[in-house]
């Protein structure tokens, strides 16, 4: 019950697993192919801008999940990276007239840089303090965005041009943009998968499970955590940059703490520490926001209720439960 009670080990966040056996790899290959198929078919059935929004938030949650699910670090400040990248990409595309790939690159670089600063400070404390520090620093970024000139305060950056990819492919067409977003999303997802299942990812899990022991084995835990934080911030930034192109606006909502809460909610609903959980969670949370939008603050209430229910009775999330039932890793 107290911090000094070391006898009862705290229930670990996310699955505890070793490296991937061959048959698991084959399943993953099939699942990734299935996901790719779904992404190809989805816009034929559902409004493509909606699917693109789902993909952006799924990527945002995947980035957050890298930190919580595999390093056990709960960041309450990921909106800072998401929103900052959206602003930078929007500014670069609109004011500097850069092509979308360069604008995205700048956005990712900005959020990764920000992640380096925030991460270096936050990993100096552990557990709940880590969460509070990330939240506080993200709030500082929010106030910065509120006052800075280039973010245009309450108005945000509006009418961001989607531009032409590499100066050739016009992305103002929803379908062209869809293909671009889908490809980037799949590439990012595979990269995250690779990171998690690499030796680097294994060390990360070791640190999560027992930090002093990992340190005693010679791993520099702080550097691993910082590297993960920067990666997570970078991918969250990628999600924010893509979102800026899809919705063509970057506003204070993107850097507000409630956006950090959204990443947490999506991950929690889908399943912390699962590969596909954030994607399932994103479909649910974004659909709920879309369909309940006219009910105003009831969306907030519903999100709160989902938080409470998930924490009390559904900690594994949808994909987590599915994985347990099917006795496989998802």
């Amino acid at each position, binding site marked *: *019950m*107290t*911090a*000094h*009670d070391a006898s*009862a080990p*705290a*229930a*670990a*966040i996310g699955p505890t697993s070793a490296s991937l056996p061959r048959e698991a790899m084959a399943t993953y290959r099939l699942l990734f192919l299935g996901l790719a198929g779904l992404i190809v078919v989805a816009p034929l059935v559902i409004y493509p801008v909606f699917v693109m929004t789902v993909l952006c938030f799924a990527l945002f949650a995947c980035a957050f999940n890298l930190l*919580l699910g595999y390093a056990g670090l*709960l960041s*309450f400040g990921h909106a800072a990276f998401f929103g900052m990248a959206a602003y930078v990409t929007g500014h670069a595309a609109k004011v500097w007239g850069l092509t979308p790939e360069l604008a995205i690159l700048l956005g990712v670089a900005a959020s990764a840089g920000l992640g380096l600063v925030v991460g270096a*400070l936050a990993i*100096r*404390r*552990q*557990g*709940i*303090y880590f*969460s*509070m*520090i990330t*939240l*506080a*620093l993200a*709030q*500082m970024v929010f*106030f*910065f965005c*509120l*006052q800075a000139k280039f973010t245009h305060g309450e108005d945000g950056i509006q009418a961001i041009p989607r531009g032409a990819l590499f100066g050739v492919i016009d992305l103002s067409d929803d379908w062209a943009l869809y293909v671009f977003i889908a490809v980037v999303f799949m590439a990012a997802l595979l990269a995250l998968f690779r990171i998690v299942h690499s030796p680097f990812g294994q060390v990360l899990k070791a640190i999560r499970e027992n930090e002093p022991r990992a340190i005693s084995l010679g791993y520099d835990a702080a550097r691993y955590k910082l590297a993960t934080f920067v990666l997570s911030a970078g991918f969250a930034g990628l999600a924010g940059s893509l979102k800026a192109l899809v919705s063509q606006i970057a506003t204070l909502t993107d850097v507000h*703490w409630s956006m950090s*809460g959204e990443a*947490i909610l999506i991950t*929690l609903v889908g399943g912390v520490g699962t590969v596909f959980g954030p994607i399932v969670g994103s479909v649910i949370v974004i659909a709920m926001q879309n369909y309940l939008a006219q009910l*105003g*603050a*009831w*969306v*907030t*209430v*519903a*999100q*709160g*209720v*989902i*938080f*409470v229910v*998930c*924490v*009390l009775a559904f*900690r594994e999330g949808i994909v987590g439960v599915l994985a347990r039932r099917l006795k496989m890793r998802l």
Partner: protein
Amino acid sequence: MIPFLDISTQALFGQLLLGLINGSFYAMLSLGLAVIFGLLNIINFTHGAQYMLGAFAAWMLLNYLGIGYWWALLLAPLIVGATGVVLERLLISRLYKLDHIYGLLLTFGLALIIQGLLRNQYGVSGMPYAMPKELMGGRNLGFMFLPNYRAWVIVASVIVCFGTWFLIERTRLGAYLRAATENAALTQAFGINVPLLVTLTYGFGVGLAALAGVLAAPIYSVNPNMGADIIIVVFAVVVIGGMGSILGAIVSGFSLGLIEGLTKVFYPEASTTVIFVIMAIVLLVKPAGLFGRTA
């Protein structure tokens, strides 16, 4: 009026007073957070919402039941504290064996629910809450004008903070609480009802937040979002002060409020971020917090 770096003494002391008032709220809120964290090991994210509920309870008591400020000062913390007791028993108590992260997530969800419900009912514009007649007006101190109500808020919060410190550090009940914080299992073995103590502690911490809310109601407009932003600042205050000591929470609350007020005079653009900057510096220099014990 003595010119001081181009800033009139009037403005300087005015902002210092505002800072001190903000500091009073930071101190009371971080005190409640620290007390709750000490025993429950949960960061109570609902704290901001409960501060807001305190202000709303005072507003409702006045507008629906005609009960005035002074009774509200007593009743609102009791009512909100009672809801806290219910929350602790029904929901929070289920999480003690889990990772602390879940406590943060649960209380975050609860805060969303409370804020959302009140936003639906009362909108976001905020409602005025009249100052009690006895504390209207103010006095001229020669170098500045001191509104009576603001002086009262500072005095009241100093009393509340000192009272809490006394309760925890100098009474038998406080000794039980400190013992349970140190080692819950052993304290229980001595025949002290620790689960009850935990529930009451949560209720007390929540009541403290509600009391701060009632004190804040006549100064700030009563609105559903009033707790959301202050709680993040209070988190920073808690990181700076460290949650190990009661006095640490009080001292850092008041002094950070003052620093914020000073920043408003000399460099207004930074006034919203100065506390976070200080937090970053403290993390670099003394990661455990100024008054913190290293875990």
